[in-house]
């Protein structure tokens, strides 16, 4: 019998059976998509961005569709870390899938406190530090656009946790390479790229912004070329692994990110369009490897032919 190719990857200590993760904020806490797929077949579940205290989030409308994309300004609505641990983790723990918690805060101290809290909990496989959310007034995006602040946050979190630490970067910067280097230096075990591009939509009829928050984050196929470019640029500049995301809809898209140098991928907006997109992508990557005669996904990672 033919052996299946190996899809397993290790993202800075986060071990996954396959490289397909969910993108934070697009997959809830996992249970929402349970009717549509077997959660155990995911590489990892990255849950909605979590903060110390509950956050109400922004007013509606919170989303607007754009050509081949969407803007969102959810504003980090979440029930807070305590609620998450009490009410969402139990369900996730029933599964055999790594859980990555995406964290956000208003200061380096916030992030550190949250990380310390999660570090003590069982069943959490890694932390993804969102230093790039464009939808909150304070902090958020600023952390991700200046190297020094990015370093402060990652450094503070690094001090309080042994968990694999993934820095999630903003694409709204002049040099993604500089930011990536600075978080690597500050002790990140991996980077996630990209978060959403800052965008805006206006209703010509009412002359009002289509989002209550005026601006929001652009995601979906529209941003894929930018995401792919950033993954490729960063792959050439840092030694820690990259989780690539931004507009991945199909296995072919995922393969492109792996070729560009990502060691894993996250699927976001695609979940809304196709609730079993992640499964299709896992299967499709496996099929691609078989067709190409590759025995291990690492043969594919960073294999761009120039």
């Amino acid at each position, binding site marked *: 019998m033919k052996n299946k190719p190996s899809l397993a990857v290790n993202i800075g200590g986060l071990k996954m059976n396959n490289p397909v993760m969910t993108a934070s*904020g*697009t*997959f*809830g806490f996992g249970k*929402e*998509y349970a*009717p*549509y797929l077997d959660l155990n077949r995911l590489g990892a579940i990255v849950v*909605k961005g979590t903060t110390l205290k*509950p956050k*109400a*989030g922004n*007013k*509606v*409308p*919170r*989303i*607007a*569709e754009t*050509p*081949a*994309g*969407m803007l*969102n300004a*959810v504003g980090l*609505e979440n*029930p*807070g870390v*305590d*609620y998450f641990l009490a009410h969402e983790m139990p369900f996730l723990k029933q599964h055999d899938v790594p859980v990555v918690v995406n964290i956000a805060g208003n200061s380096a101290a916030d992030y550190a406190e949250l990380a310390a809290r999660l570090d003590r909990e069982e069943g959490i496989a890694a932390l993804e530090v969102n230093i790039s959310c464009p939808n909150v007034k304070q902090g958020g995006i600023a952390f991700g656009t200046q190297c020094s602040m990015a370093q402060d946050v990652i450094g503070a979190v690094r001090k309080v946790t042994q968990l694999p630490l993934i820095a999630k970067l903003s694409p709204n910067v002049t040099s993604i390479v500089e930011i990536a280097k600075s978080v690597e230096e500050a002790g990140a075990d991996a980077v996630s790229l990209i978060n959403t591009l800052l965008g805006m939509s206006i209703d010509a009829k009412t002359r009002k912004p289509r989002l209550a928050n005026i601006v929001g984050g652009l995601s*979906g*196929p*529209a941003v894929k070329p930018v995401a792919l470019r950033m993954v490729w640029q960063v792959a050439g500049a840092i030694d820690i692994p990259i989780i690539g995301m931004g507009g991945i*809809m199909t296995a072919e898209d995922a393969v492109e990110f792996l070729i560009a140098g990502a060691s894993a991928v996250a699927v976001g*907006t695609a*979940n*809304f*369009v*196709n*609730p*079993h997109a992640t499964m299709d992508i896992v299967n499709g990557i496996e099929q691609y490897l078989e067709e190409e005669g590759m025995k291990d996904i690492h043969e594919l990672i960073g294999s761009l032919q120039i």
Partner: protein
Amino acid sequence: MSQQMQARILFNEQVGPDVFRMVVEAPEIAKEVKSGQFFHVRCGAEYDPLLRRPISIHQYRSKTGELFFLYQVKGKGTALLSQMRPGEYVDLMGPLGNGFSLKKGNGLYVLVGGGIGIAPLLSVAQDIKKQGFEIVTLLGAQSRSHVYVEDDFRLYSDQIFIWTVDGSSGLKGLVTHMLPEVIRTCNINQILTCGPHGMLKEVAQQAMAANIPCQVSLEEKMGCGVGACLSCACSIKVPEDSAFTYKKVCVDGPVFEAEEVIWDEE
């Protein structure tokens, strides 16, 4: 349970200047659906438009396994939907949301629909009729040509009143003008309503003032349809100490009790 499926289109016919009725074959689903639930519909195979569109169940026939949708062409998504032909397949996700739940009593039910908001009410009317209750239906539209599937409603309604803003059909004015009279003169088990936000608010307030149970079907822009993206927040009263400020139209709704909704927020 909610699922994603490719449903074969049986009919997709125009029933108004900008309104279509689509009938699809979905035998398993047609047995499970509840009036007031919706499906999240993919309107094209490419990435523009990208997102699914929520469309309510307009009618379901468990026996023949048919689902009906009544939809208005608003933009790209619904325009593409209207171009689909019988024999083709449409990508559906659902049934989603909670649906209406009928409050029992010895009175009658009042349905209030505005614009395309009438869509889910036909299914409700069917349910009520099946249980042998009386129905008073109030339908509001811009003008005569925007009164859709009136005959279908007549089939189930004991009394039906059509209101048009320009008076070109039925009575002239807003459908809510008549509600006080109906409330005064009828023994009402429950009011069930769907339509523009302003109409819902007016109906809800009249119902609450008269202490009549009232369910409203809300709308909000949706991403996932399953409670994962937090796009569809709506202002619903929650306990002071709750970790949540908003509820989600897609999973906590789209149907809410009138008194749950915070109507003052804009």
